[in-house]
Protein backbone atom coordinates (compact mmCIF):
# COMPACT_ATOMS: atom_id res chain seq x y z
CA UNK A 1 0.00 0.00 0.00
CA UNK A 2 1.29 3.42 -0.88
CA UNK A 3 2.17 5.96 1.81
CA UNK A 4 1.94 8.93 -0.54
CA UNK A 5 -0.66 11.67 -0.40
CA UNK A 6 -2.83 12.00 -3.48
CA UNK A 7 -5.28 14.69 -4.30
CA UNK A 8 -7.27 14.25 -7.49
CA UNK A 9 -9.78 16.73 -8.67
CA UNK A 10 -11.70 16.06 -11.85
CA UNK A 11 -13.17 19.53 -12.34
CA UNK A 12 -15.63 18.59 -15.04
CA UNK A 13 -16.55 15.05 -15.87
CA UNK A 14 -16.89 14.17 -19.52
CA UNK A 15 -19.18 11.68 -21.21
CA UNK A 16 -21.87 12.28 -18.63
CA UNK A 17 -24.77 14.68 -18.92
CA UNK A 18 -24.62 17.85 -16.89
CA UNK A 19 -22.10 19.57 -14.69
CA UNK A 20 -20.45 17.44 -12.07
CA UNK A 21 -17.04 16.94 -10.53
CA UNK A 22 -15.20 14.51 -8.34
CA UNK A 23 -12.98 15.23 -5.33
CA UNK A 24 -10.70 12.49 -4.07
CA UNK A 25 -8.07 12.78 -1.34
CA UNK A 26 -5.92 9.90 -0.27
CA UNK A 27 -3.77 10.17 2.85
CA UNK A 28 -1.41 7.43 4.00
CA UNK A 29 -3.03 4.92 1.72
CA UNK A 30 -6.57 5.63 2.86
CA UNK A 31 -9.35 7.57 1.18
CA UNK A 32 -9.86 10.58 3.42
CA UNK A 33 -12.25 12.45 1.17
CA UNK A 34 -14.38 11.35 -1.75
CA UNK A 35 -17.26 13.40 -3.02
CA UNK A 36 -19.28 13.58 -6.18
CA UNK A 37 -19.90 17.30 -6.59
CA UNK A 38 -22.98 18.25 -8.51
CA UNK A 39 -22.88 21.92 -9.36
CA UNK A 40 -25.35 21.98 -12.22
CA UNK A 41 -27.58 24.94 -11.38
CA UNK A 42 -30.91 24.09 -9.78
CA UNK A 43 -33.71 24.07 -12.34
CA UNK A 44 -36.86 24.69 -10.30
CA UNK A 45 -39.10 22.47 -12.43
CA UNK A 46 -41.22 21.35 -9.49
CA UNK A 47 -41.88 24.99 -8.64
CA UNK A 48 -42.60 25.86 -12.30
CA UNK A 49 -45.36 23.27 -12.30
CA UNK A 50 -47.28 24.85 -9.45
CA UNK A 51 -50.23 26.82 -10.75
CA UNK A 52 -50.13 25.12 -14.16
CA UNK A 53 -53.05 23.15 -15.51
CA UNK A 54 -52.66 19.39 -15.71
CA UNK A 55 -52.63 19.47 -19.52
CA UNK A 56 -49.42 21.51 -19.48
CA UNK A 57 -47.52 19.14 -17.22
CA UNK A 58 -46.69 16.57 -19.89
CA UNK A 59 -44.96 19.12 -22.13
CA UNK A 60 -43.22 20.90 -19.27
CA UNK A 61 -41.67 17.82 -17.68
CA UNK A 62 -40.46 16.66 -21.09
CA UNK A 63 -38.07 19.60 -20.96
CA UNK A 64 -36.34 18.25 -17.86
CA UNK A 65 -34.35 15.85 -19.98
CA UNK A 66 -33.42 15.88 -23.64
CA UNK A 67 -32.72 12.17 -23.68
CA UNK A 68 -35.44 10.68 -21.49
CA UNK A 69 -38.44 12.99 -22.00
CA UNK A 70 -40.79 10.03 -22.42
CA UNK A 71 -39.97 8.73 -18.96
CA UNK A 72 -40.94 12.09 -17.51
CA UNK A 73 -44.10 12.22 -19.59
CA UNK A 74 -45.17 8.69 -18.68
CA UNK A 75 -44.50 9.04 -14.94
CA UNK A 76 -46.43 12.33 -14.96
CA UNK A 77 -49.33 10.84 -16.92
CA UNK A 78 -49.50 7.87 -14.53
CA UNK A 79 -49.49 10.19 -11.52
CA UNK A 80 -52.15 12.59 -12.85
CA UNK A 81 -54.41 9.79 -14.04
CA UNK A 82 -54.10 8.26 -10.60
CA UNK A 83 -55.10 11.59 -9.04
CA UNK A 84 -58.15 11.76 -11.32
CA UNK A 85 -59.11 8.12 -10.85
CA UNK A 86 -58.59 7.43 -14.55
CA UNK A 87 -57.41 4.02 -15.76
CA UNK A 88 -55.81 4.04 -19.18
CA UNK A 89 -57.25 1.53 -21.64
CA UNK A 90 -55.32 -1.32 -23.23
CA UNK A 91 -54.50 0.57 -26.45
CA UNK A 92 -53.01 3.50 -24.53
CA UNK A 93 -51.01 1.26 -22.20
CA UNK A 94 -49.68 -0.75 -25.11
CA UNK A 95 -48.65 2.34 -27.06
CA UNK A 96 -47.00 3.83 -23.99
CA UNK A 97 -44.89 0.69 -23.81
CA UNK A 98 -43.96 1.04 -27.49
CA UNK A 99 -43.14 4.70 -26.90
CA UNK A 100 -40.90 3.68 -24.02
CA UNK A 101 -39.14 1.09 -26.21
CA UNK A 102 -38.08 3.94 -28.48
CA UNK A 103 -36.57 5.85 -25.58
CA UNK A 104 -34.65 2.85 -24.24
CA UNK A 105 -33.36 2.12 -27.74
CA UNK A 106 -32.00 5.58 -28.42
CA UNK A 107 -30.69 6.26 -24.92
CA UNK A 108 -29.04 2.87 -24.38
CA UNK A 109 -27.55 2.76 -27.90
CA UNK A 110 -25.97 6.16 -27.35
CA UNK A 111 -24.57 5.28 -23.95
CA UNK A 112 -23.26 1.83 -24.82
CA UNK A 113 -21.52 2.79 -28.05
CA UNK A 114 -20.56 6.42 -27.66
CA UNK A 115 -20.05 6.95 -23.95
CA UNK A 116 -19.24 3.69 -22.11
CA UNK A 117 -17.58 1.41 -24.66
CA UNK A 118 -14.52 3.68 -25.18
CA UNK A 119 -13.66 3.07 -21.49
CA UNK A 120 -13.51 -0.68 -21.98
CA UNK A 121 -11.72 -0.57 -25.33
CA UNK A 122 -9.03 1.88 -24.26
CA UNK A 123 -10.09 5.04 -26.08
CA UNK A 124 -10.58 8.59 -24.87
CA UNK A 125 -13.72 9.05 -26.92
CA UNK A 126 -15.90 7.50 -29.56
CA UNK A 127 -13.99 9.35 -32.28
CA UNK A 128 -10.84 7.40 -31.46
CA UNK A 129 -12.84 4.22 -31.04
CA UNK A 130 -14.42 4.69 -34.47
CA UNK A 131 -11.03 4.34 -36.14
CA UNK A 132 -10.60 0.80 -34.82
CA UNK A 133 -14.20 -0.26 -34.41
CA UNK A 134 -16.15 1.61 -37.11
CA UNK A 135 -18.78 -1.11 -37.48
CA UNK A 136 -19.58 -1.06 -33.78
CA UNK A 137 -20.04 2.70 -33.88
CA UNK A 138 -22.20 2.48 -37.00
CA UNK A 139 -24.34 -0.13 -35.27
CA UNK A 140 -24.81 2.26 -32.37
CA UNK A 141 -25.83 5.07 -34.70
CA UNK A 142 -28.31 2.81 -36.51
CA UNK A 143 -29.94 1.66 -33.29
CA UNK A 144 -30.09 5.18 -31.90
CA UNK A 145 -31.68 6.48 -35.10
CA UNK A 146 -34.26 3.70 -34.99
CA UNK A 147 -35.11 4.61 -31.41
CA UNK A 148 -35.66 8.19 -32.49
CA UNK A 149 -37.95 7.06 -35.31
CA UNK A 150 -39.99 4.96 -32.91
CA UNK A 151 -40.34 7.95 -30.58
CA UNK A 152 -41.45 10.11 -33.52
CA UNK A 153 -44.10 7.55 -34.49
CA UNK A 154 -46.06 8.33 -31.33
CA UNK A 155 -44.49 11.58 -30.19
CA UNK A 156 -44.52 13.52 -33.46
CA UNK A 157 -40.81 14.27 -33.07
CA UNK A 158 -37.92 12.68 -31.21
CA UNK A 159 -36.69 15.75 -29.31
CA UNK A 160 -39.14 16.75 -26.59
CA UNK A 161 -41.96 14.77 -28.23
CA UNK A 162 -45.42 16.31 -28.17
CA UNK A 163 -47.70 13.34 -28.87
CA UNK A 164 -48.51 12.26 -25.33
CA UNK A 165 -51.28 13.65 -23.15
CA UNK A 166 -52.96 12.74 -19.91
CA UNK A 167 -55.37 9.98 -20.92
CA UNK A 168 -53.42 8.79 -23.96
CA UNK A 169 -52.06 10.32 -27.16
CA UNK A 170 -53.14 13.21 -29.37
CA UNK A 171 -52.84 11.12 -32.50
CA UNK A 172 -52.80 7.43 -33.35
CA UNK A 173 -50.28 6.30 -35.96
CA UNK A 174 -51.75 5.17 -39.27
CA UNK A 175 -51.55 1.48 -40.09
CA UNK A 176 -49.14 2.16 -42.95
CA UNK A 177 -46.76 4.01 -40.62
CA UNK A 178 -46.81 1.10 -38.22
CA UNK A 179 -46.16 -1.38 -41.03
CA UNK A 180 -43.13 0.60 -42.15
CA UNK A 181 -41.84 0.80 -38.59
CA UNK A 182 -42.30 -2.93 -38.12
CA UNK A 183 -40.12 -3.62 -41.14
CA UNK A 184 -37.36 -1.44 -39.70
CA UNK A 185 -37.61 -3.06 -36.28
CA UNK A 186 -37.28 -6.54 -37.78
CA UNK A 187 -34.28 -5.47 -39.86
CA UNK A 188 -32.55 -4.15 -36.74
CA UNK A 189 -32.88 -7.31 -34.67
CA UNK A 190 -29.55 -8.84 -35.86
CA UNK A 191 -27.82 -5.62 -34.75
CA UNK A 192 -29.23 -6.07 -31.25
CA UNK A 193 -28.26 -9.75 -31.12
CA UNK A 194 -24.74 -8.92 -32.24
CA UNK A 195 -24.57 -6.08 -29.71
CA UNK A 196 -25.31 -8.43 -26.82
CA UNK A 197 -22.52 -10.81 -27.80
CA UNK A 198 -20.14 -7.89 -28.42
CA UNK A 199 -20.93 -6.34 -25.03
CA UNK A 200 -20.44 -9.66 -23.26
CA UNK A 201 -17.01 -9.94 -24.89
CA UNK A 202 -15.72 -6.60 -23.61
CA UNK A 203 -13.02 -6.91 -20.96
CA UNK A 204 -14.77 -5.83 -17.77
CA UNK A 205 -13.14 -5.51 -14.37
CA UNK A 206 -14.17 -8.48 -12.23
CA UNK A 207 -15.31 -6.66 -9.14
CA UNK A 208 -18.40 -8.09 -7.45
CA UNK A 209 -19.91 -5.99 -4.71
CA UNK A 210 -22.94 -5.88 -2.46
CA UNK A 211 -25.78 -3.49 -3.24
CA UNK A 212 -29.53 -3.30 -3.08
CA UNK A 213 -31.38 -3.26 -6.40
CA UNK A 214 -34.63 -1.33 -6.78
CA UNK A 215 -36.90 -1.40 -9.83
CA UNK A 216 -40.47 -1.67 -10.97
CA UNK A 217 -41.95 -5.12 -11.38
CA UNK A 218 -44.83 -5.71 -13.75
CA UNK A 219 -47.33 -8.49 -13.34
CA UNK A 220 -46.14 -10.24 -16.49
CA UNK A 221 -43.84 -8.09 -18.64
CA UNK A 222 -40.37 -6.62 -18.34
CA UNK A 223 -41.08 -3.33 -16.53
CA UNK A 224 -41.31 -0.03 -18.40
CA UNK A 225 -44.26 2.25 -17.76
CA UNK A 226 -46.05 0.53 -14.87
CA UNK A 227 -45.63 -1.87 -11.97
CA UNK A 228 -44.93 -2.12 -8.25
CA UNK A 229 -41.68 -0.99 -6.68
CA UNK A 230 -39.61 -3.95 -5.51
CA UNK A 231 -36.11 -4.58 -4.20
CA UNK A 232 -33.94 -7.63 -3.70
CA UNK A 233 -34.11 -7.00 0.04
CA UNK A 234 -37.80 -7.81 0.18
CA UNK A 235 -39.45 -4.49 -0.60
CA UNK A 236 -42.68 -4.87 -2.57
CA UNK A 237 -44.81 -1.74 -2.45
CA UNK A 238 -47.33 0.21 -4.46
CA UNK A 239 -45.99 3.33 -6.17
CA UNK A 240 -48.01 5.44 -3.70
CA UNK A 241 -45.98 4.07 -0.77
CA UNK A 242 -42.63 5.37 -2.08
CA UNK A 243 -42.45 8.12 0.54
CA UNK A 244 -42.84 5.68 3.39
CA UNK A 245 -39.62 3.87 2.48
CA UNK A 246 -37.43 6.27 0.53
CA UNK A 247 -36.04 9.55 1.81
CA UNK A 248 -34.06 12.29 0.11
CA UNK A 249 -31.51 14.55 1.75
CA UNK A 250 -29.38 17.52 0.80
CA UNK A 251 -25.61 17.33 0.80
CA UNK A 252 -23.44 20.45 0.78
CA UNK A 253 -21.54 19.38 -2.34
CA UNK A 254 -24.58 18.75 -4.48
CA UNK A 255 -27.53 20.58 -5.98
CA UNK A 256 -29.08 17.14 -6.45
CA UNK A 257 -30.70 15.26 -3.60
CA UNK A 258 -29.32 11.98 -2.26
CA UNK A 259 -32.00 9.28 -1.91
CA UNK A 260 -31.88 6.35 0.48
CA UNK A 261 -34.02 3.26 1.02
CA UNK A 262 -34.49 2.66 4.75
CA UNK A 263 -31.42 4.80 5.31
CA UNK A 264 -29.15 2.92 2.91
CA UNK A 265 -27.90 3.63 -0.63
CA UNK A 266 -29.44 1.59 -3.41
CA UNK A 267 -29.17 1.04 -7.15
CA UNK A 268 -31.69 1.85 -9.86
CA UNK A 269 -31.17 1.43 -13.59
CA UNK A 270 -30.63 -1.34 -16.13
CA UNK A 271 -28.62 -3.70 -13.92
CA UNK A 272 -31.11 -3.40 -11.06
CA UNK A 273 -34.02 -3.89 -13.47
CA UNK A 274 -32.46 -6.95 -15.05
CA UNK A 275 -31.41 -8.49 -11.74
CA UNK A 276 -34.98 -8.16 -10.44
CA UNK A 277 -36.83 -9.08 -13.61
CA UNK A 278 -34.94 -11.95 -15.25
CA UNK A 279 -38.14 -13.99 -15.31
CA UNK A 280 -39.92 -11.17 -17.15
CA UNK A 281 -37.54 -11.11 -20.11
CA UNK A 282 -38.98 -12.10 -23.48
CA UNK A 283 -37.94 -15.68 -24.24
CA UNK A 284 -35.57 -14.70 -27.07
CA UNK A 285 -33.82 -12.10 -24.88
CA UNK A 286 -33.44 -14.62 -22.06
CA UNK A 287 -31.92 -17.15 -24.47
CA UNK A 288 -29.55 -14.53 -25.82
CA UNK A 289 -28.43 -13.57 -22.33
CA UNK A 290 -27.84 -17.21 -21.40
CA UNK A 291 -25.65 -17.66 -24.50
CA UNK A 292 -23.25 -15.00 -23.19
CA UNK A 293 -22.30 -17.33 -20.34
CA UNK A 294 -22.51 -14.43 -17.89
CA UNK A 295 -24.65 -15.23 -14.89
CA UNK A 296 -27.40 -12.91 -13.72
CA UNK A 297 -28.34 -11.62 -11.21
CA UNK A 298 -24.93 -10.02 -11.35
CA UNK A 299 -23.08 -8.21 -8.58
CA UNK A 300 -20.58 -6.70 -11.00
CA UNK A 301 -21.65 -3.09 -11.56
CA UNK A 302 -19.79 -3.06 -14.87
CA UNK A 303 -22.35 -5.53 -16.20
CA UNK A 304 -24.64 -2.51 -16.48
CA UNK A 305 -23.39 -2.17 -20.03
CA UNK A 306 -24.47 -5.71 -20.86
CA UNK A 307 -27.80 -5.04 -19.15
CA UNK A 308 -28.30 -2.05 -21.45
CA UNK A 309 -27.49 -4.21 -24.45
CA UNK A 310 -30.06 -6.80 -23.36
CA UNK A 311 -32.63 -4.05 -22.83
CA UNK A 312 -32.02 -2.85 -26.38
CA UNK A 313 -32.92 -6.35 -27.50
CA UNK A 314 -35.97 -6.32 -25.21
CA UNK A 315 -37.08 -3.00 -26.66
CA UNK A 316 -36.87 -4.31 -30.24
CA UNK A 317 -38.62 -7.58 -29.43
CA UNK A 318 -41.35 -5.88 -27.42
CA UNK A 319 -42.00 -3.08 -29.89
CA UNK A 320 -42.24 -5.63 -32.69
CA UNK A 321 -44.61 -7.87 -30.73
CA UNK A 322 -46.88 -5.02 -29.71
CA UNK A 323 -47.02 -3.37 -33.12
CA UNK A 324 -47.73 -6.65 -34.91
CA UNK A 325 -51.20 -6.57 -33.34
CA UNK A 326 -51.72 -2.86 -33.97
CA UNK A 327 -55.18 -1.54 -34.72
CA UNK A 328 -56.08 2.10 -35.19
CA UNK A 329 -58.38 3.08 -32.31
CA UNK A 330 -61.57 5.08 -32.66
CA UNK A 331 -59.90 7.67 -30.44
CA UNK A 332 -56.35 7.56 -29.01
CA UNK A 333 -57.19 8.98 -25.59
CA UNK A 334 -59.70 8.84 -22.79
CA UNK A 335 -61.57 11.88 -21.56
CA UNK A 336 -60.16 13.38 -18.39
CA UNK A 337 -62.32 14.78 -15.60
CA UNK A 338 -60.14 16.65 -13.13
CA UNK A 339 -60.83 16.23 -9.45
CA UNK A 340 -58.98 17.41 -6.36
CA UNK A 341 -56.54 14.94 -4.93
CA UNK A 342 -53.08 13.50 -5.03
CA UNK A 343 -51.57 10.99 -7.42
CA UNK A 344 -48.29 9.16 -7.69
CA UNK A 345 -46.76 7.63 -10.80
CA UNK A 346 -43.59 5.81 -11.68
CA UNK A 347 -41.89 4.39 -14.72
CA UNK A 348 -38.50 2.98 -15.65
CA UNK A 349 -36.44 5.70 -17.31
CA UNK A 350 -33.35 4.40 -19.15
CA UNK A 351 -31.36 5.31 -16.03
CA UNK A 352 -33.84 3.80 -13.58
CA UNK A 353 -36.93 4.41 -11.50
CA UNK A 354 -38.51 7.83 -12.01
CA UNK A 355 -41.17 8.76 -9.46
CA UNK A 356 -43.64 11.68 -9.59
CA UNK A 357 -46.27 12.95 -7.17
CA UNK A 358 -48.77 15.72 -7.86
CA UNK A 359 -51.37 17.44 -5.71
CA UNK A 360 -54.11 18.98 -7.83
CA UNK A 361 -57.18 21.04 -7.11
CA UNK A 362 -60.71 20.46 -8.41
CA UNK A 363 -59.92 22.32 -11.65
CA UNK A 364 -56.86 20.23 -12.34
CA UNK A 365 -54.38 22.93 -11.38
CA UNK A 366 -51.12 21.67 -9.89
CA UNK A 367 -50.70 22.76 -6.28
CA UNK A 368 -47.60 20.76 -5.46
CA UNK A 369 -45.20 18.61 -7.45
CA UNK A 370 -42.42 16.29 -6.47
CA UNK A 371 -40.09 14.49 -8.88
CA UNK A 372 -37.46 11.95 -7.89
CA UNK A 373 -35.21 11.16 -10.85
CA UNK A 374 -32.96 8.11 -11.11
CA UNK A 375 -29.62 9.91 -10.95
CA UNK A 376 -30.36 11.42 -7.54
CA UNK A 377 -31.36 7.94 -6.38
CA UNK A 378 -28.04 6.56 -7.57
CA UNK A 379 -25.82 9.31 -6.15
CA UNK A 380 -25.22 7.77 -2.73
CA UNK A 381 -24.59 4.41 -4.40
CA UNK A 382 -22.07 5.97 -6.80
CA UNK A 383 -20.08 7.35 -3.89
CA UNK A 384 -20.08 3.98 -2.11
CA UNK A 385 -19.09 2.27 -5.34
CA UNK A 386 -16.28 4.74 -5.99
CA UNK A 387 -14.83 4.28 -2.54
CA UNK A 388 -14.68 0.51 -2.71
CA UNK A 389 -13.90 0.24 -6.44
CA UNK A 390 -10.87 2.48 -6.11
CA UNK A 391 -9.66 0.48 -3.11
CA UNK A 392 -10.14 -2.74 -5.06
CA UNK A 393 -8.40 -1.23 -8.09
CA UNK A 394 -5.45 -0.26 -5.91
CA UNK A 395 -4.74 3.19 -4.54
CA UNK A 396 -1.08 2.75 -5.48
CA UNK A 397 -1.95 3.35 -9.16
CA UNK A 398 -0.84 6.67 -10.58
CA UNK A 399 -3.18 9.65 -10.66
CA UNK A 400 -4.18 9.22 -14.29
CA UNK A 401 -5.10 5.58 -13.79
CA UNK A 402 -7.10 6.40 -10.64
CA UNK A 403 -8.85 9.23 -12.43
CA UNK A 404 -9.77 7.02 -15.37
CA UNK A 405 -11.06 4.26 -13.11
CA UNK A 406 -13.12 6.75 -11.10
CA UNK A 407 -14.62 8.25 -14.25
CA UNK A 408 -15.35 4.79 -15.61
CA UNK A 409 -17.19 3.87 -12.42
CA UNK A 410 -19.29 7.04 -12.60
CA UNK A 411 -20.02 6.78 -16.33
CA UNK A 412 -21.14 3.21 -15.77
CA UNK A 413 -24.26 4.64 -14.07
CA UNK A 414 -24.97 6.84 -17.11
CA UNK A 415 -25.73 9.71 -14.74
CA UNK A 416 -27.95 12.49 -15.99
CA UNK A 417 -26.95 15.32 -13.72
CA UNK A 418 -29.22 17.87 -15.36
CA UNK A 419 -32.21 15.72 -14.46
CA UNK A 420 -31.09 15.33 -10.89
CA UNK A 421 -30.60 18.91 -9.81
CA UNK A 422 -33.14 20.34 -7.46
CA UNK A 423 -33.94 23.55 -5.77
CA UNK A 424 -31.54 24.06 -2.87
CA UNK A 425 -32.99 24.71 0.55
CA UNK A 426 -31.93 28.02 1.95
CA UNK A 427 -31.20 28.22 5.66
CA UNK A 428 -30.93 31.68 7.12
CA UNK A 429 -29.66 32.23 10.66
CA UNK A 430 -30.16 35.64 12.18
CA UNK A 431 -29.04 37.08 15.42
Amino acid at each position, binding site marked *: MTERSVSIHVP*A*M*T*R*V*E*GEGALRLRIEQGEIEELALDIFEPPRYFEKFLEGRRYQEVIDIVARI*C*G*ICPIAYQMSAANALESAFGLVADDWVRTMRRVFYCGEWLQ*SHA*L*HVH*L*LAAPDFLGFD*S*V*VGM*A*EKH*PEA*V*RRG*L*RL*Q*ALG*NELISLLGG*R*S*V*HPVGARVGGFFRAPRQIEVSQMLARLRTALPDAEELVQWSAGLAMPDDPQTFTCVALRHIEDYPMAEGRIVSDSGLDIAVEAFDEHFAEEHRPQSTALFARLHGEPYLVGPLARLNLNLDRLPESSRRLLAETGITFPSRNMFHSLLARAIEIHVALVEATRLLEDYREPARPYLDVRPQAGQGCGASEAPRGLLWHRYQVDEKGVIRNARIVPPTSQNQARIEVDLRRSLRHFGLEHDDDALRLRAETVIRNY*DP*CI*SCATHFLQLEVKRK
Partner: protein
Amino acid sequence: MIRVIGLGSPFGADRLGWDVVERLHGRVPAAVHLMTLDRPGVALISWMDNVDWLILVDAVVTERSPPGRVLHFAPEQIRHNPAGTLSSHGLNLPQTLRLASTLGSLPRRLDLFGVVVDACRTENSRHGIATGTTQLIAQLAAMLGGEHRPDSASDDPARGSAVQIPSASPIKTS
Protein backbone atom coordinates in the same frame (compact mmCIF):
# COMPACT_ATOMS: atom_id res chain seq x y z
CA MET B 1 -27.68 14.75 -54.10
CA ILE B 2 -27.57 18.22 -52.59
CA ARG B 3 -29.15 18.54 -49.15
CA VAL B 4 -29.73 21.65 -47.03
CA ILE B 5 -30.46 21.08 -43.35
CA GLY B 6 -31.65 23.80 -41.00
CA LEU B 7 -30.43 22.87 -37.52
CA GLY B 8 -31.63 23.90 -34.08
CA SER B 9 -34.63 24.17 -31.87
CA PRO B 10 -37.87 25.15 -33.62
CA PHE B 11 -38.30 27.84 -30.97
CA GLY B 12 -36.70 31.16 -30.14
CA ALA B 13 -33.54 32.54 -31.73
CA ASP B 14 -32.30 29.01 -32.34
CA ARG B 15 -34.96 28.43 -35.01
CA LEU B 16 -33.01 30.52 -37.49
CA GLY B 17 -32.00 27.40 -39.44
CA TRP B 18 -35.67 26.46 -39.70
CA ASP B 19 -36.62 29.91 -40.99
CA VAL B 20 -33.92 29.86 -43.64
CA VAL B 21 -34.94 26.45 -44.94
CA GLU B 22 -38.63 27.33 -44.96
CA ARG B 23 -37.93 30.46 -46.99
CA LEU B 24 -35.70 28.57 -49.43
CA HIS B 25 -38.68 26.52 -50.63
CA GLY B 26 -39.48 27.61 -54.16
CA ARG B 27 -36.20 29.47 -54.50
CA VAL B 28 -33.93 26.52 -55.22
CA PRO B 29 -34.21 23.71 -57.79
CA ALA B 30 -36.60 20.93 -56.84
CA ALA B 31 -33.71 18.47 -56.81
CA VAL B 32 -32.22 20.19 -53.78
CA HIS B 33 -33.48 18.41 -50.68
CA LEU B 34 -34.51 20.86 -47.96
CA MET B 35 -35.11 19.72 -44.40
CA THR B 36 -34.82 20.69 -40.74
CA LEU B 37 -33.54 18.79 -37.72
CA ASP B 38 -34.09 19.66 -34.09
CA ARG B 39 -30.68 19.28 -32.35
CA PRO B 40 -29.92 15.91 -33.90
CA GLY B 41 -26.55 15.20 -32.28
CA VAL B 42 -24.94 12.16 -33.87
CA ALA B 43 -28.18 11.38 -35.72
CA LEU B 44 -27.02 14.03 -38.19
CA ILE B 45 -24.62 11.43 -39.60
CA SER B 46 -27.48 9.28 -40.87
CA TRP B 47 -28.59 12.22 -43.07
CA MET B 48 -25.22 12.24 -44.84
CA ASP B 49 -25.83 8.97 -46.71
CA ASN B 50 -25.79 9.43 -50.50
CA VAL B 51 -25.29 13.17 -50.18
CA ASP B 52 -22.69 14.86 -52.41
CA TRP B 53 -23.03 18.32 -51.00
CA LEU B 54 -24.40 19.04 -47.58
CA ILE B 55 -25.19 22.56 -46.42
CA LEU B 56 -25.92 23.08 -42.74
CA VAL B 57 -27.60 26.24 -41.52
CA ASP B 58 -27.64 27.15 -37.85
CA ALA B 59 -27.87 30.07 -35.45
CA VAL B 60 -24.48 31.07 -34.05
CA VAL B 61 -23.83 32.57 -30.64
CA THR B 62 -20.59 34.50 -30.36
CA GLU B 63 -19.47 37.75 -28.82
CA ARG B 64 -16.92 38.30 -31.57
CA SER B 65 -19.37 39.25 -34.29
CA PRO B 66 -22.45 41.45 -34.17
CA PRO B 67 -25.94 39.95 -34.40
CA GLY B 68 -26.89 39.43 -38.03
CA ARG B 69 -23.38 38.71 -39.32
CA VAL B 70 -23.45 35.86 -41.85
CA LEU B 71 -20.70 33.34 -41.20
CA HIS B 72 -19.38 30.51 -43.24
CA PHE B 73 -17.36 27.58 -41.94
CA ALA B 74 -15.54 25.02 -43.99
CA PRO B 75 -15.55 21.47 -42.59
CA GLU B 76 -11.95 21.60 -41.36
CA GLN B 77 -12.74 24.74 -39.36
CA ILE B 78 -15.69 23.10 -37.70
CA ARG B 79 -13.97 19.82 -37.02
CA HIS B 80 -10.95 21.47 -35.43
CA ASN B 81 -12.99 23.60 -33.11
CA PRO B 82 -12.05 22.74 -29.52
CA ALA B 83 -14.45 20.09 -28.34
CA GLY B 84 -16.82 20.66 -25.49
CA THR B 85 -17.67 17.88 -23.10
CA LEU B 86 -19.11 14.78 -24.65
CA SER B 87 -22.50 14.37 -23.11
CA SER B 88 -25.19 11.74 -23.03
CA HIS B 89 -27.46 14.38 -24.50
CA GLY B 90 -25.52 14.26 -27.70
CA LEU B 91 -22.31 15.22 -29.37
CA ASN B 92 -21.92 18.80 -30.45
CA LEU B 93 -21.49 19.66 -34.11
CA PRO B 94 -17.66 19.60 -34.23
CA GLN B 95 -17.60 16.23 -32.46
CA THR B 96 -20.29 14.86 -34.74
CA LEU B 97 -18.40 15.97 -37.85
CA ARG B 98 -15.16 14.49 -36.53
CA LEU B 99 -16.97 11.21 -35.94
CA ALA B 100 -18.52 11.33 -39.41
CA SER B 101 -15.09 11.98 -40.89
CA THR B 102 -13.58 9.02 -39.03
CA LEU B 103 -16.39 6.80 -40.24
CA GLY B 104 -15.92 8.02 -43.80
CA SER B 105 -19.45 9.38 -43.82
CA LEU B 106 -18.76 13.02 -44.69
CA PRO B 107 -20.20 14.18 -48.00
CA ARG B 108 -17.79 15.23 -50.73
CA ARG B 109 -18.56 18.83 -49.90
CA LEU B 110 -19.89 20.24 -46.68
CA ASP B 111 -20.56 23.86 -45.72
CA LEU B 112 -21.95 25.35 -42.55
CA PHE B 113 -23.60 28.74 -42.75
CA GLY B 114 -24.65 30.63 -39.68
CA VAL B 115 -26.14 33.93 -38.69
CA VAL B 116 -25.04 35.43 -35.39
CA VAL B 117 -27.94 35.71 -32.95
CA ASP B 118 -28.15 37.04 -29.43
CA ALA B 119 -30.29 36.08 -26.51
CA CYS B 120 -31.23 39.66 -25.54
CA ARG B 121 -32.88 40.48 -28.86
CA THR B 122 -32.85 44.24 -28.79
CA GLU B 123 -34.54 46.16 -31.55
CA ASN B 124 -31.17 46.67 -33.23
CA SER B 125 -30.15 43.03 -33.03
CA ARG B 126 -33.56 41.91 -34.26
CA HIS B 127 -33.19 44.11 -37.28
CA GLY B 128 -29.62 42.87 -37.86
CA ILE B 129 -30.64 39.23 -37.61
CA ALA B 130 -33.53 39.74 -40.02
CA THR B 131 -31.20 41.44 -42.50
CA GLY B 132 -28.56 38.72 -42.11
CA THR B 133 -31.14 35.98 -42.55
CA THR B 134 -32.45 37.54 -45.75
CA GLN B 135 -28.89 37.96 -47.01
CA LEU B 136 -28.06 34.31 -46.29
CA ILE B 137 -31.20 33.09 -48.02
CA ALA B 138 -30.27 35.11 -51.11
CA GLN B 139 -26.73 33.72 -51.03
CA LEU B 140 -27.91 30.14 -50.71
CA ALA B 141 -30.53 30.56 -53.41
CA ALA B 142 -27.86 31.96 -55.73
CA MET B 143 -25.43 29.17 -54.86
CA LEU B 144 -27.97 26.45 -55.39
CA GLY B 145 -29.66 28.01 -58.36
CA GLY B 146 -26.89 27.51 -60.86
CA GLU B 147 -24.18 30.09 -60.26
CA HIS B 148 -22.42 27.74 -57.91
CA ARG B 149 -21.88 24.02 -58.14
CA PRO B 150 -20.16 21.48 -55.93
CA ASP B 151 -16.37 21.82 -56.07
CA SER B 152 -16.50 25.36 -57.37
CA ALA B 153 -16.25 27.23 -54.10
CA SER B 154 -13.72 29.82 -55.20
CA ASP B 155 -16.34 32.51 -55.62
CA ASP B 156 -18.41 31.48 -52.68
CA PRO B 157 -20.14 34.71 -51.67
CA ALA B 158 -19.69 34.08 -47.97
CA ARG B 159 -15.96 33.50 -48.15
CA GLY B 160 -13.77 36.31 -47.05
CA SER B 161 -16.02 37.33 -44.22
CA ALA B 162 -14.68 37.44 -40.69
CA VAL B 163 -15.64 33.92 -39.85
CA GLN B 164 -15.59 32.82 -36.26
CA ILE B 165 -16.48 29.69 -34.46
CA PRO B 166 -18.23 30.11 -31.13
CA SER B 167 -15.85 29.81 -28.19
CA ALA B 168 -12.85 29.68 -30.50
CA SER B 169 -10.28 32.12 -31.79
CA PRO B 170 -11.04 33.96 -34.99
CA ILE B 171 -10.24 31.88 -38.03
CA LYS B 172 -8.94 33.30 -41.26
CA THR B 173 -10.78 32.06 -44.27
CA SER B 174 -9.44 31.59 -47.72
